[in-house]
Structures are given as C-alpha cells and as structure tokens.
C-alpha cells in the first residue's frame, strides 16, 4: 500500500468498486422494481376510473393483465436485484475480513498493538459487514431515487399543483416527524443504555455463580439483582413511552397529510382538471412516496455507519509494522548462539547477554518486565530501542522475520492453543492425521513435556478437542500441551518462558528432566524463576535492574546470591 496513508474512503471505494458489476446490476433491477411498485397504485386508480366507474368489462380484463405483467416484473426484478445486492455486500465483507486477517497475521506484526483480540475480531466481522452493506445501501439509494422520480413524473403529469404538494410535502412531513421525534429519540437511546444494564448484571452474576455459592451469598445477590432489575425496568418504560409517542406522532402527521391531499385533489377533481382515477392514484402515490423517502434516511444512516467502519478497517490495515523487516536468509546450518549487546527496552537497561550454542541456559529475573522485554526482542515482536541482538553473529533486524522464527522459537508463557485436537495442537503444521493419532515425534515431545499423562486422562486421547483457546483443558494440562508443541517444533534455538507455573510440583520436576533430555545438544533458554527448572540448567543468569546481576549454576547462586535466593525461593 503506497506511501499515502490508507483512508476509510479508500476502503469504501475499493470495496464498492470490487463489486461494481453486481452493484450496477442490482441498481438497475431495483429501479425496475421501484417503477413497478409505483405503478401499482396508479393502475388501481386506472382500473377504478376506466373499468369500474365506466362499467367496461373489456378494459377491466386488459388492465388486470397489465397489472399482472407489472407484478411479474416487480417481483422478479426485486428478487434478482436484491440477490445481486446481498451477494455484493457479503462478498466485499468476506474480502475485507481476509484483508484484516492477513494484516494481523503479518510476520512483522504491529496490528494488535493497543487493540484487544475481541476488538480486532469485531473489525473483521461487524465492521467488514457494515462496509459490505454500503454496496447494498448505495443500491437502495439508487432505487429510492428511481421510485421518487417515477412518482414525481406521474404526479406532475396528472396535475402540477397536486404533484408539487405531494413532492414538497412528503419531505417536509418526514422532516417534521424527525424534528419532533428527535428529543424523544435521544431520550430513548439514553434510557435503553440504562435498561441494558440489567441484562449485563444477570450475566455477571451467573458468571460468578461459583464464587457466590462458595460464600453462600446467593440471597444477597438475588436481592441486589432485583433492585437493578427494577431500576432498569423504570428506564425501559420511559424509553418505551417515548417511542410510543413518536410512533403516534408520525401516524398523526401522515394522516393529516393525506387529508390535505384529499382536500386539494377533491377540489381539482371537481374542477375537472383531475380525473377520478388520478385522484385515487395521487393518494396511493403519496403513501408510496413515504417508502423511498424513508429509505433515504436509512441509506444515510447506513453510509454513516459504513464510513465509521471503513475508517476502523483502514486504521488496522494502515498500522505500521512492529519490527523492521529484513530479507536476509538465516545462515544455515544454524549454530544457535544468541548474543545481546547493550540492549535497552522498557526494563532492560543495557543488557549484555550471551546464550551459548548447544547448552541449556536458565534465566531468572527479579522483575517480570525484564523477561517480557527480552522475550519480545527475541521473538521479534518488538525491536530494542538501542543495542543489538544477534543470532550466530547476524543482527536479527537483517533477517527475514518469518524465517528467523523457524530458527529461534519463542514459546510464550501465554501462547494460544487453537480449537482442534491435542495432536493437531502439538503438531499444527502437519496435516491433521485421521483419527487424531499422533505421529512418533509428537509422541516423543508429549512424553518429554508430560503431556502424555494429559492425553491418557482425556476421553479420546490425543484426538480429544481442546476447545477454543484450550478451554476444555485445565491450566496445568494446557501448559504441558504448549510445551509439547514447542518441543515438537524442534527449532535450533528454543526460548521457553515459565512453562510450568500451573503445574503441580511433582509434575514440574518430571517436566524439568524431560525438557533437559529432549533438548540435549541444542540451544535452549528457559526464562523462569522456578527452582525445579533452574536446577536442571547448565548455567543460570540472574537479571536485576535490567542487567545481568549474577551468573553460575543454580546451586552456586543459591549459595552465594541473596538476590537470587529471594527471587527464586519464595
């Protein structure tokens, strides 16, 4: 996307242009439909005038056939036009959804910065949908213009004064209704917000049900809810009353307008300047006109929403990358030595750190922020403010970020599990095997992470689904599956962060041993304060105040470093 920042307007224009043919077809067909709709009351007037009043059976037949033809046309044009419009809306939403997704998943990252996942998912669904709906709204606008034009021509042909009254009066009528209804509408919106709170409160109490039961506090909760519900009810009633009055107001205005047309039309008809049928048609057209005019109001609201949504999509798409992206290839084979020099980022204050190739290194911190900052540098989620990070002597920013992640894998503490079987989560890049059975490397990795025990306790073994975000697994089970995945990936350099915090002490000790054996001979950095894990490392580094404070084996540090003792042995 070029040098100019992508705007919401660009997103809208591209989205509509991408569906130009469907939009054009939909608009054309919709105009035919409107023409038909406008003709129905006209034809009813004609039938009354020529056939009923003239007592002419032949004309009756002719005009009923015409009416049938009009109905066939309006029905089919509506069907085909609306289908084209809806298809255009859906397709452009789908295209936008994928564009947002691609941006979020881009190897250089950055799109999630400051946005919650739910918010981004909302942009990809709701906002994409609203921008897609703009195609439909534009078409509806075109239809409404056509409908108004047709009625205007028909009315003016019948009688210029009556036509003008209807054409000028209808917008005034709608405007009046809008103006008078506005205070009511505003009030109603505020009240509805308040009313929605009761629903939220109920959901909240149900979500905290176990906590309430644990305290025996249900009675207090019920009483509190009843109060909230009553307050909410009062607000809802005020809102509903406001809305009822608005409905009544619009009805009264419309009725008054019809009376006006009847008065003027009747007088014109008595003058002989208007035929009887034309009078009936005029009343029918006045009622019909309200439809397209209301559509205008709706189109306006849709466009406003579409513009806002397009702006949000543009913002996501135009977000700058979080890290500079090089395109150099990772030197092969990877020896796996990491070297940090004078790295500054957040809590890191000029960190110099060497992670030797082929060894298991432990890293303990006095401040968790140090660990976070270090991991985001190594995982290329962020670049350090200053200083350098090198893999086998090559600075990371020069390397292609996606390729680098194949060589240096950062297994985050809060990494995600995806909906699917345990086996599919441990080896996500493999085609999911039939029946969910795990292949041999997966089995080995799971054994090392003690995830085999998890699998044994699940109803369908490794083929058991983990649910969205792994919610069917307990915290300890999830961590073991996460670790198994990191081990299964088998990168030359593996950085693991706090892999056992939710695991009981017995299992933790076993996992520590499994991890050490599995990674033997390959570079591994374990960032943790857990003594069980640190005890199996070759060497431990303690970070304090953003720098290396002590180095040595776990046993040495426990003996010699009070800072280490207090950080690790809570």
């Amino acid at each position: 996307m070029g040098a100019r920042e992508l705007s919401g307007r660009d997103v809208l224009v591209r989205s509509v242009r991408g569906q130009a043919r469907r939009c054009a077809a939909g608009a054309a067909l919709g105009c035919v439909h409107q023409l038909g709709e406008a003709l129905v009351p006209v034809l009813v007037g004609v039938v009354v005038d020529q056939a009923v009043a003239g007592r002419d059976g032949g004309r009756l037949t002719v005009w009923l056939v015409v009416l049938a033809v009009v109905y066939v046309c309006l029905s089919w044009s509506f069907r085909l036009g609306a289908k084209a419009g809806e298809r255009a809306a859906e397709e452009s939403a789908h295209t936008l959804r994928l564009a947002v997704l691609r941006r979020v998943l881009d190897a250089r990252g950055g799109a999630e910065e400051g946005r919650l996942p739910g918010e981004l998912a909302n942009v990809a669904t709701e906002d994409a949908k609203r921008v897609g709906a703009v195609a439909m709204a534009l078409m509806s606008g075109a239809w409404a213009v056509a409908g108004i034009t047709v009625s205007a021509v028909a009315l003016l042909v019948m009688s210029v004064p009556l036509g003008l009254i209807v054409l000028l009066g209808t917008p005034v009528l709608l405007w009046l209704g809008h103006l008078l209804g506005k205070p009511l509408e505003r009030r109603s919106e505020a009240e509805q917000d308040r009313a929605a709170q009761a629903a939220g409160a109920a959901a909240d109490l149900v979500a905290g049900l176990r906590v309430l039961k644990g305290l025996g506090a249900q009675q207090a909760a019920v009483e509190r809810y009843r109060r909230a519900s009553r307050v909410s009810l009062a607000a809802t009633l005020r809102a509903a009353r406001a809305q009822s009055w608005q409905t009544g107001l619009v009805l009264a205005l419309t009725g008054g307008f019809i009376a006006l047309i009847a008065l003027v039309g009747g007088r014109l008809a008595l003058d002989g300047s208007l035929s009887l049928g034309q009078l009936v048609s005029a009343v029918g057209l006045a009622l019909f006109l309200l439809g397209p005019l209301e559509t205008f109001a709706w189109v306006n609201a849709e466009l406003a929403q579409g513009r806002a949504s397009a702006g949000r999509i543009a913002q996501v798409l135009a977000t700058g990358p979080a890290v500079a992206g090089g395109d150099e290839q990772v030197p092969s084979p990877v020896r796996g030595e990491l070297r940090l020099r004078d790295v500054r980022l957040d809590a890191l204050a000029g960190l110099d750190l060497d992670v030797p190739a082929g060894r298991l290194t432990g890293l303990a911190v006095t401040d968790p922020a140090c660990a976070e900052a270090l991991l985001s540098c190594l995982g290329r989620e962020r670049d350090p403010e200053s200083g350098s990070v090198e893999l086998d002597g090559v600075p990371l920013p020069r390397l292609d970020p996606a390729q680098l992640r194949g060589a240096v894998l950062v297994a985050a503490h809060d990494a995600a599990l995806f909906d699917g079987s345990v086996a599919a989560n441990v080896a996500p890049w493999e085609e999911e095997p039939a029946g969910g059975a795990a292949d041999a490397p997966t089995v080995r990795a799971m054994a090392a992470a003690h995830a085999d025990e998890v699998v044994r306790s699940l109803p369908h073994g490794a083929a058991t689904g983990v649910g969205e975000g792994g919610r069917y697994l307990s915290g300890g089970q999830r961590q073991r599956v996460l670790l198994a995945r990191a081990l299964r990936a088998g990168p030359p350099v593996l950085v693991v962060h706090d892999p056992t915090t939710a695991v009981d002490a017995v299992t933790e000790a076993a996992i520590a041993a499994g991890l050490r054996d599995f990674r033997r001979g390959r570079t591994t950095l374990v960032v943790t304060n857990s003594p069980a894990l640190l005890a199996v490392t070759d060497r431990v580094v303690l970070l304090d105040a953003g720098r290396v404070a002590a180095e040595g084996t776990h046993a040495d540090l426990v003996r010699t470093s009070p800072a280490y003792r207090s950080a690790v042995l809570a």
Partner: protein
Amino acid sequence: MTPYDTPAGPPPQGGGTPHTAPDTAPDAAPDADRALLPTATPARTRAVVRQLVRPHRGLVVAGFATMVLATGVGLLTQPLLGHIVDVVTAHRSPDALTWPVVGLAGVAAVQGLMTAVGLSLLSRLGETVLARLRELFVERALALPLERLEQAGSGDLSARVTRDVSRVADAVRGALPELTRSGLSIVLTLGALALLDWRFLLAALVAVPVQAHTARWYMTNAVPLYARERIATGAQQQQLLDTIGGARTVRAYRLQDGHTRRVTASSRAAVELTMRGVRLVLRFYGRLHIAEYAGLASVLVTGFLLVRSGAASVGTATAAALYFLGLFGPVNTALVLLDDAQSATAGLARLVGVVDEPAPPLPAQGAARALGEASVTLSGVSHAYVPGRPVLHGVDLHVRPGERVALVGTTGAGKTTLAKLVAGLHQPAAGRVAVGGAPPKESGGAVGLVTQEVHVFAGPLADDLRLARPDASEQDLRDALAAVGALGWAEALPEGLDTVVGSGGRALTPDRAQQLALARLLLADPPVVVLDEATAEAGSSGARVLDEAAERALHGRTALVVAHRLSQAAAADRVVVLSDGRVLEDGTHDRLLAAGGAYAALWHAWSGSRSPDPSPAPAPSPAPSPAPREPARD
C-alpha cells in the same frame, strides 16, 4: 409507519430482511454427554406466562382496547376517501368536501393519540412481565445445585441468561407491539371490508390460502436454515477470535497459511449460508407477491361486478381497493415477524425451563454459620464422576477445629474433588463427609469455599465485597481489605472503594481479584474454609503477597488448603499427600521431610539446594521423577 409499511411489497433494504440475525454468541459446545437444562413444553410456557400476566389484567384490557380503538378509527380513512370519490363522481359542490376532509384530519389525530397511549400500555405490560421473569430466572439459576449446572455445562446457563433473555426482550420491545398492531389492522380491515360488502371480504380472502401456505413453507425451511446460519456465523466469529487472539502464536510457529485457510473456509461457509437465507427470503416475498396480486385482482373484479349491478358505489369500490392496498404492509410485517416471534418463543421456553427446575430454597445469608464444633471428618469416602472411573478411594481424614491441612499431589490425584466434597458441592459415592458432625450443605453452610475461579462482580468495589456481608460498614470493608493487603491499591483506585470494577469497569489483575476473594471470605466469616486457588505463579512476588493474605484470611478457622505451591504446604499444620485418590502420606511438614518419602523428594526438588538444615547435601541433583509413581490408570 414502520420500515415495512411500504404500500406494496417488501422493503427494499437489505438491512431490514429478517435473515440477518447475527448471533455471535457461540452456541454451547454440542457435547454428547451433556445433560442440558430443561426446556419447558409449550403448554407449560403458556401457563407460566399467564401466571405472570395475571396481576396485570387491567393493563391487558386497557392496552388492547386502546389499540383496537386506534386501529378501528384509522380504518375510517378509506371510507372517508371513498366518500370524497363519491362527491366527485356526483359532481357536488366543493363544500361537500369539507366534512370528509375534517373527518380525515380528526381520524389522524385520534389515531395517533390512541396508538401512542395503546403502545405505551402494551410495552408497560410486556416489560413488567419480562422483568419479573428475568428476576425469577436469576433467583432460580442462583439456587440450582452446582452439580446440576456442571452436568449441563457452564455455557448453557450463561447462554440462556444472555442470548435467550435478549431475544425475548427484543421481541417484547419490537415484535410484540408490531404484531399486535398488524394483527389488529388485518382483522379490523377484513371486518371493514365485510362492512362495505361481505363479497369484498370473500374476494380479499382469496389471498389467504397462498399466504398461509407461504408462511408455513417459509417457517419449515427458515427455522433450520437460520439455526445453521447462526452456528456458522458463531463458528466464523469463534475462528477469528481463535486466530486473532493467538496471532503471536501464529507468527511464532509460522501458521499463517493454515489459519488463513481456516478463516477463509469458515467465512465462506457463513457467506454461503447467508446467501441461502437471502434466496429463501426472496422466494418468500415472490410468493407473497402472487398472493397480493390474486387478492387485489379479485377485489377489483368484485368492485367492478358490484358497481355494475348497482350493489355498490364507485366510492365503496375505491375504499375496498384502498383497504386491500393498506393490507400489504401489516401482512408483510406480520409474516416477517413470525420469525422473531418463533425465536423468542423458543427462548422463552428455555427461560421457563430453568424457572421450573426444582431447586432448594435459598438459605438466609450467614444463617448456618453457628456450628457446634468446626471439625471436618471424612470416613471411607470414595467418589467417581463417571461410574467406573473412581477419583477417590476410601479416604479417611479428620481435621480438628482450627487446624490447617494442606492437600498435596499431582493433577488428577483427587485434591480438588476432595475439596468439593467437603464444601458440599458433591455428595460422595460412598462413605461419609461431616462438617461439625453434619453433612455439609452446598451453600449458606458452615464452609466457605474459595476456588481457582476468580470473578470480580461488575459494579462498585464496595458492592462486590458486600455480597459476602450485606450489612458490612465501610470500616468493615476497609478492615477486610487491609487484612489481605489490598487496601493500598483499593484506595488508590480513581474513586476508591466506589470505583466500578469488573466487566464494563476497571479490570483487576488476577492477583488482585484473588485478594478480593479472600477479603470476601473474611467478611463472610465462615468457621470452616476450603481454599483451592491457583492464581499466583510460583516464585512470583504475587505468590508471597497472596500467601500472606491467605494466612490472615485463614487465621482462627478450620482450613483445608489445596496446595498449588509448596510454600502453602509448609505453612500448614499438617500435610496430606494424595496419590491416585488415596492418602499416601499424612503428617507435619517436618515429620514428612524427615521421613524421606514422596513429600520430601518433592520438597527437595522444589526448593533446590535449600534442603532443610539436617540434610548436609548441597544441591541434590533433581530427582528425575520424584513423583510417587502412579500405576497406569484403568
């Protein structure tokens, strides 16, 4: 005029068609072995609704009477227009137009006023009944035994309280008044046609079989299709959340291609189902057009015949034609709303199902706190969630009043199950659990339970705490917060204890939420406490703060602590090691260390070289597998 009230045919807006019912709430996972909460039968649902409506009979009568009046008055419009046509046909003086026009204006004013009043009354009725139902639902939901809820899955109840309540509320606000108005319009218009001439009514009814058949055909096809569409939309949303929520992981493991494929597939599936829904709706409208034409043509033919035979004036025929044109809007509205009404009815049945579920009455707050002796005794307790897969085997355990016992063991050793039995959430399959000599009750009993599940109740922080003790003074709250070390940050919140926290308010970190849970425990002041929290990460500074907070919350109480960190075990009076549902070791921390068994191995591994003083060994190389090895299950 509603957006649907276009004189002929359906609204052109795509946004107004009924198929767009985005329901992003993921449907509860379809789990075969779940026993969902019940859904009420239609008869039972009607009975409950009748019962809820009964106290408001006055409103019902007044609301419907006003609406009938409003609609009836509105129907004078067409005869008045017809009269104007007759005046024109008869070439009478322009003054003859005056009274019908004044009549039209009067009709408009009265109709507007009556509609406003009628709709207000109807919404008062609907909203009041809905509020009562909502309250009954929450009351019953909170009283249901947890065991029952766990069988149903946690999603079931929360889906009902969010999705079903909002569906019913939407219907009460939108569909109910609209359906009432449309229904009355249709019935009264048909009546008015009959008043003009009964033959007009017959002519208009030509459309009815087509409409009825169309409606039935539509409902049969639409209900399952929309259910599928909702599931597909939910799946698409879920897939997006799954992928976007795990974007860092996707990048780290370079899974972009696979995830883009997944999202594309789920989005495509949702798009195609939406389009199927669109096609269905459009076919539905196509058939309605046929009905409209048939009815309109037959009314016009009837008018022609009646005028020719002199049985009706041209004005009457005009009025009949206008009546019929006026029917298009209400008929379309009613048919379109059938869909909403149907989904609301289904939601209503699910709400009534819960309201009807038997549940023990809610205990009065703190009623059963008085307890003879705060001891806990388990004798020969066995338990299995699934028959044939026992989790506990013949456990014997006695906790003396004021004693603190820590439970240690691997995941799946039965710690949490044991805790739940003591808290009375489950009944043991065999053996006996006694708290103060009596079987524990699920709630309101002598046992306070703090679980791994942290929940901060939405609303002011003080209100959250007062759930535990509604009559607590401001000072009580401060004392409780101070005791768990939370007063500092609580007072530093923008509005202190009045700060709105929880969903929709300020989010609290898990550590703080857990402190809050302990503060609530202090306020509730139960003599026996079961603590099963695992929020703090071992080794983190949060763990120390929480250990201290728990220390104070447990002071002077009989406590069973599920130890997620060995520091919790070390602080207990006694440690019980569970393995595979059996008690493996039981003794004080020091005694078990000295004994050199499973617990000692565990402790050494956990504490690294900081072995207890008697042991001279420096950093024991970590035991490869200090776990008491369990025999393979099953």
